[in-house]
């Protein structure tokens, strides 16, 4: 039976993504490592500060895993939440797992925690890159209703691999943020079709920000993650320069496009208007960009 990734809680995603009964939580809810800031602001905390971390096995291989709970504060990264992610990446250096898997669902920095949240995001980024520099692959899975935005969007793009569903969204500024700073003519955040074709999984897949596109199904995310285990992309000057070349190439090729539909047409998609109705499995044929060179 199909188990929707988007509709599952962070805990249910972890339980069904990993091998059955293999998950061992670190700093579980009973330890009550909660936010030191929220109570002062009169906001209830969550016993796990909105992120589940721990170890387990995936297809028999040892992995470390984190899952953000989008329902709690929009998955916002606060001080404790960020510290749990940092600790997980540091643990990876010692345990050398086949991957660190992050089920990202977050609007970015938890605004209640201001600077502590901002610092947490940069610390997570540093710890993630440290793990990658030691050859440990980092895999982001994005398929929650809240998407992956702000600082968490930046963190996601620091990973070796990004797996998304059509429902998943990935970007820096969220739709409402763009509209309020640049006006509704620039971006209408209530136009859901526009929002999804600009930030959604299919667009990210077509332009190369997402490596694997899957259906909204925990089992599909599981298969995709298994396929990426042990595959580390070298973190060196050559890969950085290739990434920069790709980005400037994107600007040259598509800089004047007003809509993702224009980008898709120019990228060689024969009928861009039909993309919204395609299954994840039908999208591969539309992708012209070569897959990343693997280590």
């Amino acid at each position, binding site marked *: 039976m199909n188990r929707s990734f988007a509709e599952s809680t962070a805990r249910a995603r972890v*339980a069904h993504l990993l091998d059955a009964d293999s998950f061992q939580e670190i700093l579980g809810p009973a330890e009550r490592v909660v936010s030191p800031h929220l109570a002062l602001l009169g906001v209830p905390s969550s016993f796990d500060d909105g992120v589940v971390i721990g170890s387990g096995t995936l297809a028999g291989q040892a992995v470390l895993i984190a899952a953000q709970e989008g329902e709690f504060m929009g998955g916002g990264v606060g001080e404790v939440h960020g510290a749990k992610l940092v600790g997980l990446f540091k643990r990876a250096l010692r345990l050398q797992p086949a991957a660190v898997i992050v089920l990202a669902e977050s609007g970015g920095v938890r605004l209640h925690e201001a600077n502590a949240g901002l610092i947490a995001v940069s610390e997570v980024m540093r710890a993630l890159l440290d793990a990658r520099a030691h050859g440990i692959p980092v895999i982001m899975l994005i398929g929650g209703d809240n998407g992956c935005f702000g600082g968490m969007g930046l963190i996601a793009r620091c990973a070796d691999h990004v797996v998304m569903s059509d429902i998943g969204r990935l970007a820096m500024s969220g739709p409402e943020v763009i509209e309020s700073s640049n006006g509704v003519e620039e971006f209408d955040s209530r136009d859901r079709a526009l929002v999804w074709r600009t930030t959604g999984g299919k667009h990210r897949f077509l332009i190369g920000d997402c490596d694997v596109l899957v259906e909204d199904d925990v089992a599909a995310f599981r298969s995709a993650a298994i396929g990426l285990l042990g595959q580390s992309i070298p973190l060196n000057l050559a890969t950085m320069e290739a990434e920069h070349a790709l980005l400037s190439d994107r600007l040259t090729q598509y800089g004047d496009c007003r809509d993702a539909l224009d980008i898709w047409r120019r990228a060689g998609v024969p009928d861009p208007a039909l993309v919204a109705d395609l299954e994840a499995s039908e999208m591969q044929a539309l992708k012209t960009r070569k897959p990343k060179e693997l280590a």
Partner: protein
Amino acid sequence: MEQLHFHFVGQQTPGDFMPILVGVVGSGNLEVMLEPSADSPECRVDITTSARGFAPIWAAVLQDFHERHGLAGISISINDMGATPAVVSLRLDQAAAELSSGTGITS
């Protein structure tokens, strides 16, 4: 935000068990954690809720829950973000159901 504390004297002692967590602290939702509190005839309930002034309703919902399950030797901790009484009752029953099925922390 308001913190509320209740205790009930029950007969059903589950003994030792792994902590149980159900629900999520999201809008109109709550998380309920059950933990063993050995050698106590009490069912202790600690609530942190975003909504102020609903103590009598919490007392009524918990009294109903206690009449259904009569738990003892247990500590119930709740973080609430404005769940309705019906949702609170369902979450409490969900936690009690997991206690009797012995599944531990699920979702």
